[in-house]
């Protein structure tokens, strides 16, 4: 059994590493965008699924990270990795700020607050045309000047693997336990000695930093940024990815993001129908399979194929 698992993992690893050589340029860029969404979705799942803090402002942090890096590189000519780092740091600071003021709010109030925060930020990016280029977009320096997008793919892969490893390590540590304790019952967690204030703020800061990192990568890959990246519909796409995959498990959220981004491109010819399809899929998943489709599929698979280990309870 174990040997089969190792062989499967190794085959998957080779496939992932050889991917740029196997597909055309179009699907390679799709894969890079999928990696971007995977980082965003996983960090949203960390904040919402594990720490239980409902934020609809996650894409705002993506745009904040992306614009920070893009603008710093454009106006001050600093190296791109430094710009991305600045984006991450700013997102961590603003994220702790939002997390801190959000301490007074529960569930839907926090969700409302973050929607408002995200729209205000988007309106600022739209209105300050002299600095951000407004709705017309901001041209951002590319990270690489190669003909192929393969370097972006590998950098993205490293970022995704690094972020995911860090997040998994976090949620399986004592801190992860604190996050879940706060999610289940804040008063009980506080009574048991969990520093609720510190860990609620921390969860927000950490998740926002990953969003900022993904945003910087996104901006320097696409070469153009519009305020639309922080729109409510983009947030809806990320929510759909996380919930359809399974918001209470980081790997499930990542797989949800990769699968949905592939679906986005496969449905490209249907244009506007895509968000309708995802909205409907999101509603059906929440209504009938709250742990996500992946957990559901895994359960069925474990019943049929004995090689697959039985699903672990993550929540």
């Amino acid at each position, binding site marked *: 059994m174990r040997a089969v698992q190792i062989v499967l993992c190794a085959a998957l690893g080779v496939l992932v590493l050889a991917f740029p050589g196997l597909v055309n340029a179009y699907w390679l860029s799709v894969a890079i965008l999928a990696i971007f969404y995977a980082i965003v979705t996983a960090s949203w799942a960390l904040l919402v699924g594990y720490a*239980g803090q409902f934020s609809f402002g996650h894409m705002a942090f993506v745009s904040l990270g992306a614009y920070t890096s893009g603008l710093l590189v454009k106006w001050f000519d600093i190296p791109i990795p430094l710009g991305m780092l600045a984006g991450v740091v700013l997102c961590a600071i603003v994220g702790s700020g939002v997390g801190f003021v959000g301490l007074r709010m*529960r569930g*839907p109030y926090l969700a409302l607050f973050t929607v408002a925060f995200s729209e205000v930020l988007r309106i600022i990016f739209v209105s300050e045309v002299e600095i951000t280029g407004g709705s017309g977009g901001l041209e951002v320096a590319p990270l690489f000047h190669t003909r192929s997008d393969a370097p972006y793919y590998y950098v993205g892969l490293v970022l995704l693997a690094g972020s995911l490893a860090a997040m998994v390590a976090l949620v399986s540590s004592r801190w992860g336990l604190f996050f879940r304790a706060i999610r289940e019952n804040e008063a009980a967690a506080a009574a048991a000695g969990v520093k609720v204030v510190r860990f609620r703020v921390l969860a927000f800061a950490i998740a926002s930093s990953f969003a900022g990192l993904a945003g910087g990568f996104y901006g320097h890959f696409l070469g153009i940024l519009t305020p639309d990246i922080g729109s409510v519909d983009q947030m809806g796409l990320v929510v759909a990815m996380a919930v359809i995959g399974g918001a209470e498990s980081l790997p499930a959220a990542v797989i949800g993001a990769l699968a949905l981004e592939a679906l986005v491109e496969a449905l490209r010819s249907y244009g506007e129908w895509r968000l309708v399809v995802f909205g409907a899929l999101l509603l059906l998943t929440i209504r009938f399979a709250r742990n996500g489709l992946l957990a559901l599929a895994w359960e069925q698979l474990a019943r049929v194929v004995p090689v697959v280990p039985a699903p672990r309870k993550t929540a």
Partner: protein
Amino acid sequence: MTDYILIQALNGLVIGIIYAVIAAGLTVIFSILRIVNFAHGEVYMMGGYFAYFAISLLGIPPMAGVVFAMAASFALSVLIERTLLTPLYSPTTERKGDYGILVTFGISIFLRNIALIVFGPYPLRPPSFLTGALILGPLIMTWDRVFDAGAAIAMLVFLLWFMHRTAWGEALNAVSQSRESAAIVGINDQLFYMLAFGLGGALAGGAGALVGPIYSLSPSMGLIPDTQAFAIVILGGMGSVMGSILAGLMIGVSESMFVALFPDPSRSLTYAQAFSLLVLMVVLLVRPTGFFGRIHTALD
């Protein structure tokens, strides 16, 4: 200049009354179902389109179109409630608050994008209710706005009468105070969840039909009024219809003053949208229970 500001203030009052209708719908839903309905702005948008198509396809006169829009929004809301919200009442559902947020957020994405396909991205303008303008000395106001204000006041008076002077309203109030006690005295709570969500939707849809001739209709028109309604509901206190009316007028007037007095006119319109969002953020920070909140409707 003072005339301009006076006219802006009057316009703000009219818009404020319409905001109050949207917010009153939101607060009725909140006080019975205990969810913050993120799809409320999309029902408002649908109401506008219901009226538009009732007028242009069925040949219904514009004023009757408002009633049609309210009925259609009521039906749409009841459909949503029966298909997607019933897990909220089931004891086996874990973390109902999260479910309510996610499902209504999903509904809003779905409705907005299906409207984009069915109705198209271009603004549509339904015909005026009444043409011409009312002129009182230096003050000018289109008859559309006068009609809107009158119709919105009528809706609010009806709502207050319904909530406080009828057995159905009393039953709604009973369910909002305690589901269990209401069930003990023989109130069928399922019926009243349906009624509350439908009533809230009808108010949003009616408001959407009213603003159509003033602002035109577009699939994304619900986004901003939605946050404005949230700001109003929280300012006025969750569950308080009177509070929503007062806060709606406050927000409407202060917002149009903001537009009138903003130093940079080229940005005043985009930042006017941010204004209500900032109000919402400040209210959430400073006084999350609002001014007229009732203890039993506080959200934990």
